[in-house]
């Protein structure tokens, strides 16, 4: 579904991504992990057209989408959430979702689709509330509703669990599982909460200092020496 070859991204002299190659197959749940500053969000931004890349190619469903603008990437079938949640604060929850739906499908069936998405994520009763009045968990769910209403093929989640308490976390995990199933989604998720990403993912990619250092099943990644070194440093007692 998604083929990435040789992605490099620099900010001036700083190389943030270097020669990233990755493949994601349809229906997979791929976790993307790495220490802070590894380049995970930058990779997301480059894949979703938020930032131009310096070199490399991105192919999605057979189409070369390299350096497509963000709106075109969305319309092609890739939706994303943001690391720091970004709802449209002055708009109601319903209008937040309508933006995404109407951008892709126009006005026909918009209200029904918006309510369906909000109800699916438990925000039906808050449809007319401005997004500014939601708590963090609700805002994250609103971003998911906004993403799902456009019926994407690939959903990219950037630390969607960050800041949630234990019960909100369980709720979010449940929503993501149901969402993936109901829309037959492929998911790439950046996450720092290890037990969550390990349990959800079919496969995990590990980024460190702009390079992909490991690609395997959760079990393989957990035992990978280079991954452990990347998180804990050289002098680690991480045998346990």
């Amino acid at each position, binding site marked *: 579904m998604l083929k990435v070859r040789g992605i490099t991204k620099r900010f001036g002299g700083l190389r943030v991504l270097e020669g990233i190659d990755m493949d994601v197959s349809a229906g997979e749940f791929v976790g993307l992990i790495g220490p802070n500053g590894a380049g995970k969000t930058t990779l997301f931004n480059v894949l979703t057209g938020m930032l131009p890349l310096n070199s490399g190619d991105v192919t999605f469903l057979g189409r070369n989408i390299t350096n497509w603008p963000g*709106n075109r990437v*969305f319309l092609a079938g890739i*939706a994303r959430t943001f690391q720091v949640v970004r*709802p449209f604060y*002055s708009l109601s929850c319903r*209008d937040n979702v309508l933006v995404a739906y109407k951008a892709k499908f126009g006005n026909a069936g918009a209200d029904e689709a918006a309510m369906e998405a909000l109800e699916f994520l438990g925000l039906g009763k808050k449809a007319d509330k401005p997004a500014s009045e939601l708590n963090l968990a609700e805002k994250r769910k609103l971003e998911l509703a906004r993403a799902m209403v*456009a019926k994407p093929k690939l959903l990219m989640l950037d630390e969607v669990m960050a800041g949630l308490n234990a019960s909100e976390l369980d709720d979010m995990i449940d929503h993501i599982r149901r969402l993936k199933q109901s829309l037959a989604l492929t998911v790439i998720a950046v996450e720092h909460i290890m037990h969550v990403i390990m349990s959800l993912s079919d496969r995990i990619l590990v980024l460190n200092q702009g390079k992909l250092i490991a690609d395997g099943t959760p079990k393989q990644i957990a035992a990978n020496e280079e991954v452990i070194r990347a998180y804990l440093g050289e002098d680690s007692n991480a045998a346990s």
Partner: protein
Amino acid sequence: MVLLPLFDSDPYHIHLIISVGLMIYLAMTWNIVGGLAGQVSFGHATFVGMGAYASTLLFINYGLTPWLGMIAGGLLAVVVSLMVGLPCFRLRGAFFSLSTLALAEVVRIVVVNTERIGPFEVRGAAGILVPLKGDAPGLFQFNGKVPYYYIIWMMIGAVYYISYRIKTSRYGLFLSAIADDEEAARANGVNVLKAKMLALMVSAFLAAIGGTFYAQFYRSVDPVNVLAVGFSMEIVLMAVVGGTRFLHGPIIGTLILAPFGEVVRASLGGSFFGLHKIIYGMVLVAVILFFPNGIASLPDLIRGRVKEKQNLHAAGVGAEE
């Protein structure tokens, strides 16, 4: 308001209301791009000037009635808006605003220093006078002020309707999303540049029509007044003070500031030149501190406070029980 001329025929009062009406109209045209799309432009007077100069020069040189000349002026403003918007909209926030300010000043300076453009005598800083034709409705000229009074209120009605149709449309939803968070809007499928450009083009066209009204009402067009940065700033101020998120915000802001400004200018303009601008600044600071969403947000603020008090009271009652 509509029947006012029947009750008050004082030409000064009618003139004042028409001047205020023109500012309301221009503030509302600015708000299409500044409020609905959240793109704060400091060059709106450029489009007003385009309309004023275009319709007047076409009238002087070719006898074209300003009723048609205003369309030509509007189209010219649209072309200029494309030239301004395409490079400037790639900039964000303050950089965009500053770039519009810079371009507006460039236009003003060029016009001030230009005597002629092809067959058209622009006459630089001296400006041009609209040839007087007496009572000639077909040429957008009237002896009395009352017809201008009704025309400006019809124009206000028209721009309000256009703004309302934009705001309640799919396109208006995209503009609101862009105003909130441009990147998130783009990530959710909105063609941000196209949406902003359309807003600017509509705003420019309507502002140019206001420029034709300006020319026909004041009977003269000069760059020192109609292309001045200060004029752009006043237009922005009216909308911001009233509240850019509300369709009626520019109306409220202008009704509060503009009559006051006119009276101060008329009575103290000689001895305290610019006093009205000092007072505008003070009002702006007060609005930023106490009504950050503009004076039109006052009902929402009151509703919010009442709800807060009710919630606190309920919580207090609940605790006691």
